[in-house]
């Protein structure tokens, strides 16, 4: 469903992505681990088109999308949530979801009708709000909801485009243990045919959700395998999991 071939990116002398090749099957849930500065978010930015790789290619559903801009990749089914909330702050939860659903349903550029009143937009908004537990806050403005709920909305906005592949950049970043537990359920309840690529530091969540785990270090893939193998990987423990195991 999503594939990268020999992706490479440097900023000056700093090599942030080194020859990264990944292949995600339809419905696969892969978690990307790696210490800070490993190049995880830079990899995401190249996947969605916010950064252009120096070399290599990105393929979505068999099509080479490397040359496509962000919006066209999104329309082909590649959606992302951000590590820092990137929401429409002055608007309500419903309006945030509606904007995304309107783009997906092709109502976002129509002059003769209100995209927010379209039944197909309503349907997506209601379904996503249910999926990410946002119904109690649906009419609240973003500025009125808690940080944890905003993280849910961050994922909800990405989901409202009905993606084939959803990239989630640290969905539980900054949320407490209770909320983090809620995210386990949220991710596990997403449709099984949705392909997920998740950057996550929460190891419990990573091992709970992931079908496969990829570990990046200094921009390079140093591990690629199932969670059990990751748990037993000596290399992984050295570069990343030591502190987790000790804890």
């Amino acid at each position, binding site marked *: 469903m999503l594939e990268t071939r020999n992706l490479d990116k440097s900023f000056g002398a700093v090599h942030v992505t080194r020859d990264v090749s990944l292949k995600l099957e339809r419905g696969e849930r892969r978690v990307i681990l790696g210490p800070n500065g490993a190049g995880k978010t830079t990899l995401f930015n190249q996947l969605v088109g916010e950064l252009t790789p120096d070399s290599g290619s990105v393929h979505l559903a068999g099509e080479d999308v490397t040359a496509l801009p962000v919006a066209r990749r999104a329309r082909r089914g590649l959606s992302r949530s951000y590590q820092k909330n990137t929401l429409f702050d002055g608007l309500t939860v419903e309006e945030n979801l509606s904007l995304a659903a309107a783009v997906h349903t092709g109502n976002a550029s*129509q002059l003769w009708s209100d995209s927010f009143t379209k039944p197909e937009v309503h349907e997506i908004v209601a379904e996503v709000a249910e999926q990410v537990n946002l119904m109690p806050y649906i009419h609240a403005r973003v500025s009125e909801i808690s940080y944890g709920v905003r993280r849910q909305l961050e994922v909800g906005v990405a989901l409202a485009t009905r993606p084939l592949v959803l990239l989630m950049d640290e969905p539980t970043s900054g949320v407490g243990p209770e909320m983090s537990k809620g995210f386990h359920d949220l991710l596990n309840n997403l449709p099984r045919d949705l392909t997920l690529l998740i950057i996550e530091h929460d190891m419990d969540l990573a091992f709970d959700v992931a079908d496969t785990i990829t570990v990046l270090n200094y921009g390079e893939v140093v591990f690629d395998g199932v969670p059990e193998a990751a748990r037993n990987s000596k290399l992984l423990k050295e570069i990343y999991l030591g502190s987790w195991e000790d804890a």
Partner: protein
Amino acid sequence: MFRHNALRYAVLVALSLAALFQALTAEYFGLEILTEILILAVLVLALDMVAGFGGQVSLCHGALMGVGAYVYALVSAKAGIAPPVAMASAVAVTGVIAWVIGAICSRSHGIYFIMATLAFGQMAYAYVFEAPVFGGDDGLSGISRLDLSLFGIDLDDSRSFALFCLAVAGAVYGASVMTLQSGLGRSLTGVMHNEQRMRALGLTVWRVKADVFGLSGMIAGLAGVLAAQHVMYISPGLLSWTVSGEALVVVILGGLGTLVGPLIGAAAFVLLKHEISAWTDHWHLVVGVVLIAVVMSGANGIFGWAEARWGGWLERRMADATRKHEQEEVVSDA
């Protein structure tokens, strides 16, 4: 997102009734002032649509208004084509030019967008000033008004023309609301709040910006047609950046991103200008002081200030009602 509320409806009705009353009862000079207010209102509605709801602070809307006026004058007075066709041509040509400007400037933001639109405006001004076909510094005269004699309306009469401008301003307000509440308008507001996210959702951001800028340009062109018909003479001064600057002052004075506010701003600006210019030639100084006071108050213009007060009053009223209800419940429980 653009939303109407009770205060906005009330102000809109009050402004419409006041304008209608003035149009029906005023003498010649009062009708001229009213017409000036209404034409400016059309222009600032166009500007508020892009600046207030799209974050596109344009300094070329004066020039777009001028383009509309000149196209109308050329097509009707020089080419001798019927005014309705000339009006449609002027609006369409201005829309296309505005769409191109919007598309080119769509990747720039903030001060760079302002400067880019200023440059386009000044290019248009310089071209019109120098090209003989536009009459150079002398401008163009002999412009006729729309012929509505078929409906028994003589637009050469000041009162009829003021009422016509009022009808056009009302229609433009309705069209602006419809645009802002359409899919396109919703997307524009999304872009203003978070352009990166709208792009990541799959929206072709430049296209949305260009489309709304084009629509806004059509309205500015219509304001130009009204201005040309009003004075029956046009000069390059209409395209000057100062006209764009004044329109921006009016939008800020009234309340950016409210639609209703700029209508108040247009009335306040023209009335201030005429009242103060009766006392002194330096009326700009007084308008400047008023604008500084409005900006420094931290409120979003005159209407923004009123809306904030009204919102606070509503909240207090709701809090009082909730408290009273709770007290009644305690008493009934006891």
